[in-house]
């Protein structure tokens, strides 16, 4: 802490550099635009730096991702104005086909590449995608996701379950479309 007091920027950069790929990746997966992701990630870094003296010192990555998520919710999504896929509420969310399938998952998805997974992630409605990214890509706990998205843990659970189901359906469609499997 003495070091942090002496040179706060150096101390901040040291921690921020490690988590920046997660910050930028989350920003990109949320905004689906590199330009907007750059803006969002940079804004998040600036906000975090300005609030660094208030960071409790426990989980820097979760703190950073919370800032990114909050910024995205408060700023970018409001800016977009138009009808959002993410505006689907929990009750009206698209319910995918049953997760039980005769085709083993490995056979379904193994041949898909990262870009196709990212593409499929983009098809998941906003709020559900956010929960899936924070949990499955960034490894955040339900409590951390709830704090970041400012929603109750029960909502995190439901969004994750539905988000994953939608993602699974999108990936299966991809696999079928690309001819990796003949039927799902």
């Amino acid at each position, binding site marked *: 802490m003495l070091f942090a007091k002496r040179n706060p920027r150096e101390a901040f950069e040291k921690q921020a550099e490690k988590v920046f790929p997660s910050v*930028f990746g989350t920003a990109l997966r949320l905004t689906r635009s590199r330009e907007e992701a750059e803006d969002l990630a940079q804004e998040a870094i600036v906000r975090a730096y300005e609030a660094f003296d208030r960071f409790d010192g426990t989980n820097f990555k979760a703190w950073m991702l919370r800032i990114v998520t909050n910024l995205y919710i408060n700023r970018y999504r409001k800016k977009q104005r138009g009808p959002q896929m993410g505006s689907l509420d929990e009750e009206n969310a698209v319910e995918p086909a049953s997760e039980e399938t005769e085709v083993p998952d490995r056979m379904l998805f193994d041949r898909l590449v*990262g870009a196709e997974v990212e593409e499929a992630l983009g098809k998941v409605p906003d709020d559900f995608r956010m929960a899936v990214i924070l949990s499955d890509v960034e490894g955040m706990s339900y409590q951390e996701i709830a704090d970041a998205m400012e929603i109750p843990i029960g909502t995190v659970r439901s969004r994750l379950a539905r988000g994953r189901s939608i993602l699974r359906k999108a990936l299966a469609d991809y696999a079928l479309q690309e001819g990796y499997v003949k039927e799902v």
Partner: protein
Amino acid sequence: MMIDREQLHAFVDGELTPEEKAQVEALLDSQEALRHQVVSIRSMKLFVQEKASCMVCDTEWRACTLRLKEIDKARGVEHFVSRYAWGLCGAFFLAILVGGHVTRTVSDGSMRPGEVARIASNLPRFSSQEPDQLLESIGSAMGQTPVPSEVRIVGGAVGHVENRVVARMQLSDEKGTLSLIVIPGGVSLSGVRPVAPGSRYLTGRIDDLNCVVWEDSGLALILIGDRSPQALGGVADRVAVR
């Protein structure tokens, strides 16, 4: 006992309480379909973790560090200004005071035309003294006095203005009135030029009137009137210091 889909996801994520976890595990032992779902959820989660591409973002990070540097610079300036604001104000105030003092005391003695006008305005144009008495007063105050000829002395005064002995004579001839300001010691007036090449008289403007300035026997004389510099020089030629 029934188990819902969200609980199954929470089980895979390790987010159930020990009691809930035990319940789910008990059900998994007895229900193959449930086990199948758990495997499906788990493999899906792992699959996304594996395949989500790692972002290459060195350029974006560099842009962030540059922005942080700029913020630090701005903070440094703000910090300096807020911390030393009173000091800076004091320094400026002191600089103004010192500048004023230097202008008054350490300058080369040159005066602006406006200063001459201000000094002259502090003396009355007319006095109850007769011309001879006035000349005597000036002589006793300055040790010598300018004596104009072919012009009438119609008034004037001698006194102290800003720690200087200053005299003012109001003169008159057929072309009108003139003012003659007398200041002992060398006084150089800024913004003046010779009336003619080689002339002992310098000319300038005071209070929108022409003036000529010259020195004689340790007195600085400034003749002001609404006429040309050459005409003023002609009057000055007829002023002798005794």
